[in-house]
Every structure is written in structure tokens, then in C-alpha cells.
């Protein structure tokens, strides 16, 4: 069976950048699977998810393949692309207030794409909108309301309902709960999980929140400076990180279950797009870095004994030894 989403060797160049913004991304999402794409700002996680709908910045050039249900998005013509965005893949953005036209009623917003792109009669589109609003726990009267009359949490539900309108195979959620309160976040995440199960969609969840990624996803990809640093099942990856960046990120997060005291901040900043990179992009901030890291780009290699995990680090085994050592101390 083909995966719902398959990204192979995606490279993306932007004018003015000294290196590719995405430098060879390989990523898959299966049907009914929740996959988290984790990284800090500038890592390229949002660009990766947007490239699935070919929502690329002006001047961007791409190489590689981005296939949704076997069809390459990067080579589609305008008609196929419209079909993709209406029916096959849908995106939920971070800030629903910025993504929904404040001057139009919710009903218009929900049915617009079906009426315009799929020639669905208005009444049929309305009926679907009512069903989808019901699925996200909102009543029919919302159809006639304006965005300003709804709370942030309710509006994000509208956003999710709109993503479901075309019965997509894949939902791309780009920080969908970052603008919400924590208790609302729980509600929206629970809802997304329910819907994924019920409609059999694949879910690519883009987030900077490691705790959230660990809590909701089957598999995780960690991105750094336009590359996948590490990938694997969520539990194994967060329990036993094999890339120094993942390990450092976990240690610098103020968690409720971490030891008290100073946080282990990561020194320095991610490399700027104006710098060319030779070798490992994390080398300048990495405690394990050696000469090899500065010169040679580490390839993705399977983690010994864990065939479903890949890591791009020359010193992954050292990190494993260190973590095993500190665990033995505890």
C-alpha cells in the first residue's frame, strides 16, 4: 500500500539564500498515522508542510518528489493542484483569526472551496458544512455567524471543519494549537485525534513543542537547519535520543518532570541562511563535535538494534553511551 504522503529528497532553494532552505527531506505519513515534525523557527518545518500543498514562497525552486496518494505535487498542473487542495490534502494554520476572512460568514468560508472548485450545489455544500461542524462539536447556527463572534478555540474548530470539508486523505496541521490556551489545546488535539481515526486521514503535525509531539504522535521527525536530524517512533526517540540536537532540545525545555535548577541551554544560534554549510549543521553548537563534523555531512544511518530509527550524526554512539552512563547513575 502506498503512503498517504511520501516526500523523497526534497530540496528547496530561495533567492538570496546561500544554501538550500530544505536540503534533502525524506518523510512519510501513512493512512491513519499521526506524524510530528518538530523543530525551532527557521528549521524548515513549516516550509516542508507547505510544500505538500505547493504553497511556496515567491522565487522558490524545488527538486525531489512530494507525492500525496502517489501523485507528485511538484509537477501538477493548475487543475490537478486545485483538486489536490480541495479534496486530497488540507491545512490547518496556527492562527485561525489570520486565516479566516473576518468579513464573511462562517458558512461562506466553509463551503467556498466546494462551491468554486468542485461545482458542488450550494445546498449540498451547506449540508456537508453542518455535518462537519457537528463533527467538531459546533452547532448549525455557527454557519450564520462571523469570525469575530467566536472564541479562538471555536474558530480553530471551524478551521478543522473546513479542512474536513473535501474529505481529505491528509491533514497538515501547522502549529494548530500554539495560539490557544492549554486547556483548549487539549480539546483541539483530542478532536483531531478522533477525526483522524473516524475519517481515516493521515495527520502531519508541525510543532515546536516536544512534549506535545511526544504525547500525540506515532512517529517523529526532528528538523534542524533544513535537514532531518533524527526520526523514529515517538516514545523511543524521546526516551533515548540519538542525535545531540534532540538531546539538547529535551534538556533545555522547562518540564514539570525534569530536575529543578538551571536549564541546559544550547549555546549559540542556528546557522543563518546566509552561511554556506559544509558538514553537520549542528556542529558549531554540539558538545560532541570533532573535525569530521565540520568537514563531512553525516548521512542518515539506522540506529543499531532499532531498524525503524534513523539518525544523522557521526557520534551517535557516543551520545548513546553517555545517556546510558547517566541512566546507570540515577
Amino acid at each position, binding site marked *: 500500500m502506498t503512503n498517504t504522503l511520501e516526500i523523497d529528497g526534497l530540496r528547496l532553494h530561495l533567492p538570496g539564500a546561500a544554501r538550500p532552505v530544505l536540503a534533502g527531506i525524506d518523510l512519510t505519513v501513512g493512512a491513519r498515522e499521526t506524524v510530528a515534525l518538530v523543530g525551532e523557527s527557521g528549521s524548515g518545518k513549516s516550509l516542508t508542510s507547505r510544500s505538500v500543498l505547493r504553497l511556496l514562497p515567491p522565487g522558490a525552486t524545488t527538486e525531489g518528489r512530494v507525492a500525496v496518494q502517489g501523485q507528485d505535487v511538484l509537477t501538477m498542473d493548475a487543475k490537478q493542484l486545485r483538486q489536490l487542495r480541495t479534496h486530497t490534502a488540507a491545512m490547518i494554520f496556527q492562527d485561525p483569526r489570520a486565516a479566516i476572512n473576518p468579513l464573511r460568514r462562517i458558512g461562506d468560508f466553509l463551503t467556498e472551496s466546494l462551491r468554486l472548485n468542485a461545482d458542488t450545489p450550494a445546498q449540498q455544500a451547506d449540508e456537508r458544512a453542518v455535518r462537519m461542524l457537528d463533527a467538531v462539536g459546533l452547532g448549525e447556527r455557527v454557519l450564520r455567524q462571523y469570525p469575530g463572534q467566536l472564541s479562538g478555540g471555536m474558530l480553530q474548530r471551524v478551521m478543522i471543519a473546513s479542512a474536513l470539508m473535501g474529505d481529505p486523505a491528509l491533514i497538515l496541521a501547522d502549529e494548530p494549537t500554539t495560539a490557544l490556551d*492549554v486547556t483548549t*489545546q487539549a*480539546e483541539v488535539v483530542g478532536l483531531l485525534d478522533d477525526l483522524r481515526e473516524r475519517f481515516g486521514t493521515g495527520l502531519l503535525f508541525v510543532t515546536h513543542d516536544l512534549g506535545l509531539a511526544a*504525547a*500525540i504522535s506515532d512517529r517523529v521527525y526532528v528538523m534542524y537547519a533544513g535537514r532531518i536530524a533524527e526520526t523514529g517512533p515517538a516514545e523511543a526517540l*524521546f526516551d533515548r535520543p540519538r542525535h545531540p540536537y534532540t538531546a539538547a532540545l529535551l534538556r*533545555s*525545555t*522547562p518540564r514539570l518532570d525534569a530536575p*529543578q535548577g538551571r536549564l541546559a541551554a544550547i549555546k549559540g544560534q542556528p546557522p543563518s541562511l546566509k552561511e554556506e554549510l559544509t558538514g553537520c549543521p549542528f556542529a558549531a553548537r554540539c558538545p560532541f563535535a570533532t573535525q569530521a563534523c565540520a568537514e563531512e555531512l553525516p548521512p542518515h544511518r539506522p540506529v543499531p538494534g532499532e531498524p525503524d530509527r534513523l539518525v544523522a550524526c557521526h557520534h551517535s554512539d557516543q551520545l548513546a553511551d553517555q545517556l546510558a552512563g547517566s541512566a546507570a547513575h540515577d
Partner: protein
Amino acid sequence: MTDVSDDQRVLEVAGLHRAFGSVQAVHDVSFCLARGGSLGIVGESGSGKTTTARIIVGLERADSGRVLVRGRDRSAAAGRGRGARLERAREVQMVFQDPFLSLDPRVTVGSVLRETLRLHVPEAKADHDRRVEELLDQVGLGAREAGAMPRQLSGGQRQRVAIARALAVEPAVLVLDEAVAALDVSVQAQILNLLADIRQDTGIGYLFITHDLGVVRCVTEDVVVMRHGRIVESGRTAEVLADPQHAYTRLLLDSVPRPGWNPKAIAVARRAL
């Protein structure tokens, strides 16, 4: 909450009320902050935490209640002139969430700090250059950043500038309103460590407004939990987080994502509350 004797209190808030129309944004809020202490105010949107902070800073007026800094009433009607206003500003300073919005895009970092010094300590003019250098050094910035415009700096560097500007007048209390919420975790950790160092070195008191319980645990000693304008629970941070007494505090704690997390149960608990 820790018992703080009168002369140990750097900030005391007593019986604050503030209504916007029919909405009670802040309802009978009282707490105090010990000298050199760190107090967190936790809550969601609409809890009244930001309105409380704005009243303390003086950006918002309270309908009733008192705010005392070092035992002196800030809301006293007597202090309406320019001098009194500047003096109030020297007592309490604020760092906002988004350093992009709180810094003038056309003014270099060095000039931002010099302007603050010129306004508050004009008599020490000869000393300003040295003081600017000292402030930048305190927040881990150097001469290169002093000449930079805000847009040339990263989010973390801009937040360092905002902290340096707040420290320039040597305030007794620093109010940090979601000051690390917009930063990436690796940068957030740098800023939280920096804030801990500054407090240790200067004895400044922090009022930390945040929705993030991990941050609260990391940087505060006492905490106040607010909901719908009221304080629902308060106490030592470690105790409140380990053994929450109020159902809403428990809900907030349960809402923090972790492996094995059950978002649906939280949604049910939230509706029951």
C-alpha cells in the same frame, strides 16, 4: 504563600478590582512579593493576569485596591506630576512578550538604552556610555549589538535588549508578561538562565506572568493561579504543582502534554468545572 514580614515586601497588592463594562476582569486580587523573590501569576486568556500586571505597572487604573512598592502606595493621587510619574516608572519595569513590537525599529540598541538613561538619570550624563556598556554586558550583548537595529537581531537578542532597557533604571520589581513565550526553546532556556543570574546578582524581584507551568516551576518560588479574574489558589510553587488543591489548578497541570496524555479526559474535566 510564604509569610513575608512588612519590611521584606518589595511589592504588595491588596484588594484590586477592575471592571470593563459588566466584566469583572480583576476581582479582589491580593498578593505580595518578597524582596529579591520571584512570583508567578498563572492563568489562561481572560483570567485577569495581564490586567493585574498592567495595573501594577501603571498602564491600567484599578477601580479599587492598592499597589504598594517598598511600602509606598503607587496609586496615591498626590503623584500626578512628571516627576512622580518617572519615579513610579523607576520602581517597576516591564518586559513584554514580543520584543519586535516593544522596540522602535528605527533606533539602534545603544540609543534605546541611552534614551532611557537620559530620561531617568540626566544628572549622570558623563556616565551614560559606561552604563550602556555595562547593561549590554549584563544581558550578554556586546559592542556589535549596540550599533545594531532591532531587525538585525534575533528574537532572543531583542528580548535581551528589552531586559537591559528595563534594568537601566534599576527597578525594584520587574514584571515579565509572557516574556519568553515567543522564543524557541533553546533560546528560551538562555533567557531564563539569564534572568536567574540577574536576580541573584541584583536582588531584583520578579513578577512572572505566564501560562506555561514548566516555566513557572523553573523560575518562581511562589505562584498565584488566576481564573475569571479571581485567585483560585496560591502558595509555594513546588507545593502547588506537586499537590494542587483547586480543581482548576489540577486541570491546568493535566493539560500539559506528556506521553500517555489523555486530551479527551481533559476536555471532559474542563466542561465539568
